């Protein structure tokens, strides 16, 4: 973040504090999703069999592919931190770029997945959906809300990673001061973690 003004007092650096702040933030993001998991649990309990029927309609292979993509991107971001700590700036930049590309790939898949669904007339408020039983309406409602919010997190994470990538290139994030990269990595792991829960809840449990 660039500051339009100048600090007159000595900027104070506290990496442990910065990391702690990030963990607290991740905690709040998790709780935000927690509310949705709660709603999911309530309705899965209430409409057990209809959730099963609706889940069969989802495209398991795209979901699995996206899981692999995200897990790999979590690996590359972790490796890029390690690389920077060892002073291998070039490698670190490459790994971050790969992470970015994987994130984009995830979004592209998501786009195709959603647009096929919408093409088939399955989206909130659509006539086709409204004719289905209640449980299926809720299943798809939650599907769009939860994967949609997750996609938003992916975009935020992508922006975050790209900004830090810029810092690594200019050298303001470097071998001795890499807490920003670590924090971006943490955020990315969170995005990954949430997906690890979404995937089985929507695609696998039947």
């Amino acid at each position, binding site marked *: 973040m660039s500051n339009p003004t*100048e600090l*007159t*007092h000595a900027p*104070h650096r506290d990496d442990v504090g910065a990391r702690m702040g990030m963990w607290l933030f991740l905690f709040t993001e998790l709780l935000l999703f927690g509310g949705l998991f709660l709603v999911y649990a309530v309705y899965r309990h209430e409409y057990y069999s209809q959730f099963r029927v609706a889940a069969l309609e989802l495209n398991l292979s795209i979901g699995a592919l996206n899981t692999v993509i995200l897990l790999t991107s979590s690996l590359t971001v972790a490796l890029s931190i390690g690389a920077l700590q060892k002073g291998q700036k070039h490698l670190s930049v490459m790994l971050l770029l790969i992470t970015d590309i994987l994130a984009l790939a995830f979004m592209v898949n998501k786009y195709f997945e959603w647009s096929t669904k919408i093409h088939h007339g399955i989206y909130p408020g659509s006539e086709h959906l409204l004719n289905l039983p209640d449980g299926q309406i809720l299943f798809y409602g939650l599907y769009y809300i939860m994967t949609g919010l997750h996609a938003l997190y992916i975009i935020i994470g992508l922006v975050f990673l790209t900004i830090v990538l810029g810092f690594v290139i200019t050298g303001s994030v470097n071998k001795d001061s890499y807490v920003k990269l670590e924090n971006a990595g943490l955020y990315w792991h969170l995005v990954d973690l949430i997906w690890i829960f979404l995937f089985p809840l929507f695609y696998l449990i039947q």
Partner: protein
Amino acid sequence: MANGTIAIDDKSFLEEGTTKKATGIASWLFSTDHKRIGLMYLIAIAIFFFTGAILGVLMRLELIAPGRTIMDAQTYNTIFTLHGVIMIFLFIIPGIPAVFGNFFLPLQLGAKDVAFPRLNLLSFWIYLIGAALVLISLFVEGGPIDTGWTFYIPYSVRTTTNVSLAIFAAFVLGFSSILTGLNFVTTVHRLRAPGMTYFKMPLFVWSTYATAWIQIIATPVIGITILLVVLERLFGVGIFDPALGGDPVLFQHMFWIYSHPAVYIMILPAMGVVSEIIPTFARRTIFGYRAIAMSSLAIAFIGYLVWAHHMFTSGISETAAIIFSFLTFIVALPSAIKVFNWVATMYKGSIDPQPPFLWVMSFIFLFSIGGLTGLVLGALVTDVHVHDTYFVVAHFHYVMFGGTGTIFFAALYYWFPKMTGKMYNLKLAKFNAALFFVAFNTLYFPKFIMGYMGMPRRYYDYLPEFQNLQVVSTVGSWLMIIVICLIIYNLLSGLLNGSKAEANPWGGVTLEWHIASPPPLENFHEIPEVTHEPYDFSQLKNMKYGLKGESK
């Protein structure tokens, strides 16, 4: 200091900002100094409070006679909604943490600033954006929101007023609250001065710390709930719509999972301020320091488990109702522990009844009434009778306004000399406190009686038998607005023409009283080494600014 310009000794934070290039108002708006940010919050919050109070007075005016008096039913609906939204989301939730927490948390910890000064400025900006969104929602097409501040489903999905924008504003404000919370938690963990162990922290710090945790843990839940309502309005997803299989009561659960803990976001910091003021004016160390500190944490945690006491009449199961009722009684205990400890602190103290102390006396009385009537609402049998009546309106004004609002004024009168370096008129301030007490009870006590007699809340009209009490209450609202104007007048004239305040006018001993008034930009030229207990008044004679500011 390692690098950067060294602050010149005599300049205060009012004269010297963190911004070198910016001057004038920009040097405030872009300042990362926690003290300037605190004061900016104060100005913004004072404006909103005043607006909210005016809306309250307008409602009271409408209620002076049965039938239509000055506004129609729809206007009344939008006004109580706005009044509630402003008072809750713009005044009482951010109130004490954003103003006094920002200003005094680092000072009391012996730190130069909060852990993330720039994030702090960002929180302030987000707060302003949230407030602006509320304002915009009033004027764009659809008209001002009329759901009540609780946004209950299904009405909030059906009404054609501007619900989406207004509640999105609450979402934005929640984000600001979360960022402030995580900033404060990190500050307490990382920036305590050497020697300041957890049990040497002043109690205001303890309560702000507990509050910050609630802000972090509870606020995201209202965030997602609000998003769901917005999505429901935009796309008709069906999560809360019984026609599509959804459940409107689920909304109430999610709303109160946040909003009950939020009442502790409102009251805990106020309790912290009380724990500062009482020892200072009783000249005696606080009784039961650990009990008070731990009861803050207890409130923070038990406070999560009682939300459904707002829903006894919404159709939850009998077992659930009994459990929640029981837990509600439990959560009253830590608050009672605090009240007993405060009273015990005053016992045999040498009490100096200065204005801040008088406000605290009002607080103990009003808050106790609010708390005890809370038990009436927490008990199943009585709640069914008084649910959604004026009894509830009286109860929450006693706890929120009589509790936190009163302490907001107490804190202003207590710390004003430290924040501005000026003193206000003490006599007028004492008169204020007394008049406030009278005004408050005239305004709200009749509502307990009317509620008990069956007057429902959120009605712009009533049966003739309520008129006498309604008129008393309306007169109370006029007294109240006079009190508020007097406070503003007293503080503003103190600021402009008041005499110079001593650095330690009340003889306090926590760290903020060890430095000049107003504090210099960097707070402490040298980070202090803490050796005393927080309320050890034996250090007073050795302090740089002892009692009555005799500088050593």
